């Protein structure tokens, strides 16, 4: 410990007094450590030869490479790391200052963003043609907006009420499966399934919340995690109802007030006298999810300024003080949980109708983790922060697919999307180092007497249960 502190001091002022022998020794030690670690893991590859015997292929070149990388990476960090850290910290601070809503321009900013969102599908067609627009609207636009909506929904639970929910995807699944089942069995249209999905998800939110919400912190997190898994396992194993792991297909697509998006004479295109193109449906889906996401945002922002929203935030700050003020904490937590779940259910209904096919694979724990990291990266409680985090994280993942030129570097079997989780993890670590409270950590007061001022993130508590 003491040693690394010394070296930290050295690294902070590289020009003044870089202690080369010390840095070399440190890097050497790490290289030795890496050697020790990689020897059992990397040094031999086992395979069976023709006689079924085990053969060890030594891979000394690989070990040497890894050790060398460790040595030079550590040395480089010791020499340049200080400047790097300072630069990154300054950069992060700059970004956050720029992102913090500038008071007089906030509303202009809001309208510009809304206008851009409304124009987005048209801009996509304009810039990338009909073929390219499919990808830009579907993979980027719709995909990101789903996660923005999920992030905003979870933000009510985690960001406002301070309840760590690791099983949010369960409500997404409830929404998707109730839509799928109601529409395939009873022929309900999407517009009936949508509110029902929200109601079912909210109902399950209450069912789960009632026994669980007296738990706090880690316990709540673990129980919600388990609940998410239970829902998924029930879906997989209740084959008669859900068709198990093979999923449900043939879910009717949403229609435009009864007009289907197909090439038939009763279709949307024919009715409006347009040339049929699959883009119509995408445009429609894009505006639909945009409307749903904006609804989530509108409700959240309004609820925050109502007594219930203030009680959520008070609960996050100090549950005991809330109880001493006569606030029924169980009911307050339940409302947060069920409203968050309801928006998850809406998003699930949209998800089912968009693809026409759902399977349990879409509702694994990884999804909960991604949604939660969006909320945490964005800054708990901040609507804009969550939106930006969703764009960065989901857009970033989609962009990885675009990096096909990397195949030229790393060989044809290289798949950049496989590194998605690695990048997620690195982004998380970087954020926790430089902006531990997320992109936007400032809190806006919900009511103002004289003058609106944001509250610094260091004052705001994250809640613990």
């Amino acid at each position, binding site marked *: 410990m003491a040693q690394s502190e010394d070296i930290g001091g050295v690294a902070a002022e590289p020009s003044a007094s870089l202690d080369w022998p010390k840095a070399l020794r440190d890097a050497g030690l790490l290289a030795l450590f890496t050697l020790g670690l990689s020897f059992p893991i990397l040094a031999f590859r086992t395979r069976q030869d023709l006689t079924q015997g085990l053969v060890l292929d030594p891979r000394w070149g690989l070990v040497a490479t890894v050790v060398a990388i460790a040595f030079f990476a550590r040395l480089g960090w010791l020499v340049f790391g200080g400047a790097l850290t300072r630069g990154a910290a300054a950069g992060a601070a700059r970004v956050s200052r720029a992102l913090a809503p500038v008071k007089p321009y906030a509303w202009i900013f809001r309208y510009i963003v809304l206008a851009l969102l409304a124009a987005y599908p048209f801009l996509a067609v304009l810039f990338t043609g009909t073929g390219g627009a499919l990808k830009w609207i579907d993979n980027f636009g719709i995909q990101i907006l789903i996660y923005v909506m999920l992030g905003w929904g979870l933000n009510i639970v985690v960001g406002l009420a301070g309840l760590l929910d690791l099983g949010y995807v369960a409500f997404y699944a409830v929404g998707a499966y109730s839509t799928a089942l109601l529409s395939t069995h009873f022929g309900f249209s999407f517009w009936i399934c949508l509110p029902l999905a929200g109601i079912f998800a909210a109902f399950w939110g209450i069912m789960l919340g009632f026994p669980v919400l007296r738990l706090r912190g880690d316990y709540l997190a673990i129980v919600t995690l388990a609940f998410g898994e239970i829902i998924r396992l029930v879906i997989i194993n209740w084959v008669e109802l859900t068709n198990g792991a093979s999923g449900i297909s043939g879910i009717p697509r949403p229609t435009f007030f009864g007009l289907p998006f197909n090439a038939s004479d009763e279709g949307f295109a024919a009715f409006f006298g347009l040339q049929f193109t699959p883009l119509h449906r995408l445009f429609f889906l894009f505006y639909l999810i945009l409307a749903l996401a904006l609804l989530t945002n509108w409700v959240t922002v309004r609820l925050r300024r109502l007594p219930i929203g203030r009680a959520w935030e008070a609960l996050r700050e100090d549950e005991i003080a809330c109880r001493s003020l006569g606030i029924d904490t169980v009911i307050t937590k339940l409302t947060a949980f069920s409203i968050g779940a309801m928006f998850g259910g809406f998003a699930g209904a949209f998800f089912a109708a968009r693809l026409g096919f759902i399977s349990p694979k879409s509702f694994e724990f990884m999804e909960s983790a991604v949604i939660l990291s969006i909320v945490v990266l964005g800054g708990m409680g901040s609507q804009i922060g969550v939106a930006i985090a969703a764009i960065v994280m989901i857009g970033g993942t989609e962009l990885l697919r675009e990096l096909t030129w990397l195949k030229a570097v790393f060989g044809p079997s290289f798949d950049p999307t496989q590194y998605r989780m690695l990048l997620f993890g690195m982004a998380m670590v970087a954020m926790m180092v430089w902006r531990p409270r997320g992109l936007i950590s400032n809190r806006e*007061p919900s009511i103002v007497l004289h003058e609106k001022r944001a509250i610094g993130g260091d004052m705001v508590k994250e809640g613990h249960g």
Partner: protein
Amino acid sequence: MSVSSGDAPAGVKPPILQVEHLTMRFGGLVAVNDLSFDVARGDITALIGPNGAGKTTVFNCITGFYKPTAGRIALYRGATPKPGTLDALTNSPRRFATGDDGGIFLLERMGDSEITARAKVARTFQNIRLFTGMTVLENLMVAQHNWLNRASGYSFLGLAGAKSFRDAEAQAVDIAVQWLDRIGLKGRADDPAGALPYGDQRRLEIARAMCTGPVLLCLDEPAAGLNPRESAELNEFLMSIRSGNGTSLLLIEHDMSVVMEISDHIVVLEYGTKISDGTPQFIQNDPKVIAAYLGVEDDEVDEAETELEK
């Protein structure tokens, strides 16, 4: 009906709170032992005693944060009930009985938030518990949650932006601003509560408790950490709450300048047991209290007692 409240009854004012045979055990430790005392309506009653005497535990039992091991805690709101009603209520499974002119609440049967919401008992904490990341004004608005939430039609009217809710909210802000005026923090209404100096935080916590509209306010060491000037201000503030709002006060305090100056009635605890109960003059001259506070040996107390009995 009333359990005799010990050595020197504090006047004949009707009680608002009656604590009878209250016992609280934590495992083998008896934190409060068979404690009985009354808080008279409109009085400032002080609960004093050395550290670890069990004062905070008594508060936690009264405000529902702990379920007492044994004992009865009755709170009377409004008119003093007819004799017998308390025992009738105790023998029924109900937690409270309310009528037009008030009600009786058996606090040992009620939960913490229910006690504040229904029985109208509010409290502060020994370690200040403000919502530090919320503004001063927001803290006072949260305290008015219950009636505001009802006025917002459980959020439905509020979401729709109904006028009735906006009026109610304006009224709640008015109430908050009046309290801010009284504690001299109106200018800092939009600052985060965590940014206030310590003394201001103490007063804000009291104002926040008052925003719940209590009939009984329990303050756990409100003067701890205050300088003499702030202490004097606090005295004035507490007196004004008593006279202006008709709220009875029960306070735990170490600062004798506060206790002796403002309290009408003092209860002294030591090792969970009541050792004295009476007016400030009576307490000041009670040898048991003097012994407890000066740390005199037990046999000397007995000596003092025998001397007194002569």
